[in-house]
């Protein structure tokens, strides 16, 4: 059978060494990225300035997962983007090789293990679990039963103070019109079991303090999931002032970052009360608002932070009438000068929106001593004092794998520090909107 590529419209994909088992791909094609725990052989591959994740599996499974990820993406689920399915691989002796699923590596994303290899901030763990709970709720609202929820099967991106989680492995999942309580319960139970297993493993590797109780960590996902699910879907019954209650409920859901698609309203039998159940469409309320106003495509908590700053700017400049115009000015006067003040050599460290968020934090810190500190002063101080000490976790493109040759641990994860990379390879910094083009 001839090599067959489905999905990607990029003939250069043919140039990758498909006639060699993935395990033995030449090091110069590989990108050194920390990997999670996987059933399959997975490698990150450098491809035209990007990184692709290649996973070997059997052809029908690869195709199924490709279609599933595509469908999930179409529905707006936070997941990796499928790139291609490569089938019909044979080695030089004509022996068949496994098919491969190729996905685009999510920029600035990290597997949870990479976050543990740094000095673990107290609440990193709980923030990761919370992010996974949000992801699971979002997927369940879309009707996706995951079938193998774990920290390993997700990737994490910094999102202001929190993390955002993305689905990486959809191979065990199914899409349904609605999930049954049994499907949700099973997913939660699996998540709990898998997370506890992952914590045990981290402790066995001496990467997690023995004082952390894996069982407590596992229980947290269950608690957080249930809390969020109930807030998003519970029925409430009101006797009076219904309009006000509905407005409050919608506001509360928006504050959580979710939009309400429709409301089911049912009058109780005696007609004296109204029962309301919101149908939450999806998370991303703030990021959608920011995108509409500024063209900036950032994550939810970053968007919330940016919008707060923008709203403040509107009040200060007295431009409260026209939201769009104010947004335009804020972008030109505040946001762009701030992120452009970051020297090129540091741009690989963080996404622009995350930089902005950190500069805001830094200004707040400086303002304790000098309340009149300006944004340009804050950014200058941030670039000088904070950014250089930031760990090099966000950009791992463009390395030779040989740099890690002796620094790969049992799980195949590099233990060495990563070398600098070229910022031109990071799309996020090239796609900053220019105010002049925003109309």
């Amino acid at each position, binding site marked *: 059978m001839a090599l067959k590529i489905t999905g990607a419209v990029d003939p250069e994909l043919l140039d990758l060494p498909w006639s060699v088992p993935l395990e033995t791909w030449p090091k110069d094609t590989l990108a050194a990225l920390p990997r999670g*725990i*996987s*059933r399959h052989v997975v490698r990150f591959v450098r491809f035209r300035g990007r990184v692709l994740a290649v996973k070997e*599996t*059997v052809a*029908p*499974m690869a195709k199924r997962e490709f279609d599933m990820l595509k469908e999930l993406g179409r529905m707006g689920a936070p997941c990796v983007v499928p790139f291609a399915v490569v089938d019909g691989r044979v080695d030089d002796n004509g022996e*068949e090789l*496994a098919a491969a699923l190729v996905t685009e590596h999510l920029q600035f994303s990290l597997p949870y293990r990479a976050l543990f290899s740094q000095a673990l901030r107290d609440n990193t763990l709980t923030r990761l679990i919370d992010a996974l709970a949000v992801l699971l709720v979002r997927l369940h609202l879309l009707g996706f*039963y995951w079938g*193998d929820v*774990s920290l*390993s099967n997700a990737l994490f991106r910094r999102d202001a103070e929190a993390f955002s989680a993305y689905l990486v492995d959809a*191979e*065990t999942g199914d899409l349904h*019109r*609605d999930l*049954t309580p*049994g*499907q949700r*319960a*099973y997913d939660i*139970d699996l998540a*709990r*079991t898998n997370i*506890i*297993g*992952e914590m*045990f*493993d*981290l402790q*066995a*590797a001496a990467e997690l303090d023995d004082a952390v109780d894996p*069982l407590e960590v*596992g229980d947290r996902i269950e608690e957080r999931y249930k809390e969020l699910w109930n807030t998003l879907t519970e029925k409430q019954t009101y006797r009076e002032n219904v309009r006000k209650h509905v407005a409050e409920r919608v506001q509360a859901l928006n504050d959580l970052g979710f939009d309400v698609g429709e409301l089911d309203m049912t009058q109780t039998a005696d007609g004296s009360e109204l029962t309301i159940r919101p149908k939450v469409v999806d998370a991303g309320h703030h990021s959608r608002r920011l995108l509409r106003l500024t063209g900036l495509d950032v994550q939810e908590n970053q968007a919330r932070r940016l919008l707060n700053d923008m709203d403040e700017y509107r009040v200060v400049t007295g431009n409260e009438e026209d939201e769009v115009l104010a947004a335009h000015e804020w972008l030109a006067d505040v946001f762009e000068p701030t992120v452009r003040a970051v020297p090129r050599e540091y741009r690989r460290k963080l996404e622009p929106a995350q930089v902005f968020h950190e500069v805001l934090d830094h200004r707040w810190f400086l303002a304790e001593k000098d309340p009149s500190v300006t944004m340009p002063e804050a950014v200058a101080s941030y670039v000088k004092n904070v950014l250089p000490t930031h760990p090099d976790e966000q950009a791992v493109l463009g390395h030779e794998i040989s740099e890690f040759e002796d620094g790969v641990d*049992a*799980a195949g994860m590099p233990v060495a520090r990563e070398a600098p990379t070229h910022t031109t390879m990071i799309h996020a910094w090239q796609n900053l909107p220019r105010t002049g083009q925003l109309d």
Partner: protein
Amino acid sequence: MATVTFDKASRIYPGTERPAVDSLELDIADGEFLVLVGPSGCGKSTSLRMLAGLEDVDKGSIYVGDRDVTHVQPKDRDIAMVFQSYALYPHMTVADNMGFALKIAKVDKAEIRQRVEAAAKILDLTEYLDRKPKALSGGQRQRVAMGRAIVRQPQVFLMDEPLSNLDAKLRVQTRTQIAALQRRLGTTTVYVTHDQVEALTMGDRIAVLKDGLLQQVGTPREMYDAPANVFVAGFIGSPAMNISTFNIEGGAANIGGNKIALERDVVGRMTDADAGKLILGFRPESLDRVAPNTEGSFPVEVVVVEELGSDAFVYGQLAAPLAAEGASVSNEGQVIVRVDPRDVPKKGENVWVKIRPGEQHVFSSATSDRLSDAVTTDKSAAV
């Protein structure tokens, strides 16, 4: 360990009229290995998920032992879904990989070790218990994954296409291992596959489903020798049974002027609804090559010959024009013949074949249900 009972259990998805699983009635014995098999969309996975608690049961009930679990949460059903390929934790020993679920369930340490050791013995992993997964071969890693489910000592194992992500070679190997392991453990097991070869080789009994309806349940031998209807006849067996519709004249099927005599009892079971036609099935190995124009024989035009070394199969077409009008069977007129691999005919040639006595499968053309008795192939095993 326990029995499993589907008592007229149905699953009707919201917004659909036809049930995905329609009044399933199935009694699975304690310790039995039951395989649910059928084409995609037949309801086999849905049935398994109903038992697991992942799908609602809209009508009827499901029991594990005497306990009605119809509305019980998945984790409280004492059932284990077995995946063939868990990711193993690289820094934990094999023993810890197998036993960590018990640690979560707060089982006593000594008890965990004892259960892990017992499972390791069954899985031939005893000497690896204190090593890391890295030191294991692919097959051994899979057994560790099995061990994870075994140490929990559930009442029932559920497996949903567990071999689907393995390559062909490993699939055959693992198939044998799972079947052997289940027999050693004696734990009631329900296994889903779309592959009838997998079903035949693994199951104590097989349940064939189609369009949400149970077609037949029986041992592999029963399913092979006495398929209850045309669907099961065509589904079980590889290469598939030859099935075509023929006019019945004077107690014989008419194949382009050649007469194949049918048993009198069978012909007597025809009804008016059959309108003088019957569906006749015969397996590729039920045909003998004979001299042209031998009584009861008919010619087959050779289209392709598949040589497999130990066997050879002729894929052909009934040479004479086809019998009945309004035929209801797919691949009408296509005939597969097992032939001596040392004497294969050429493409385009006509071979004359005759169905061995007692090896006809006759079905009603009106209902597709079986009319003839079971075929007993044992007597011809020596041929």
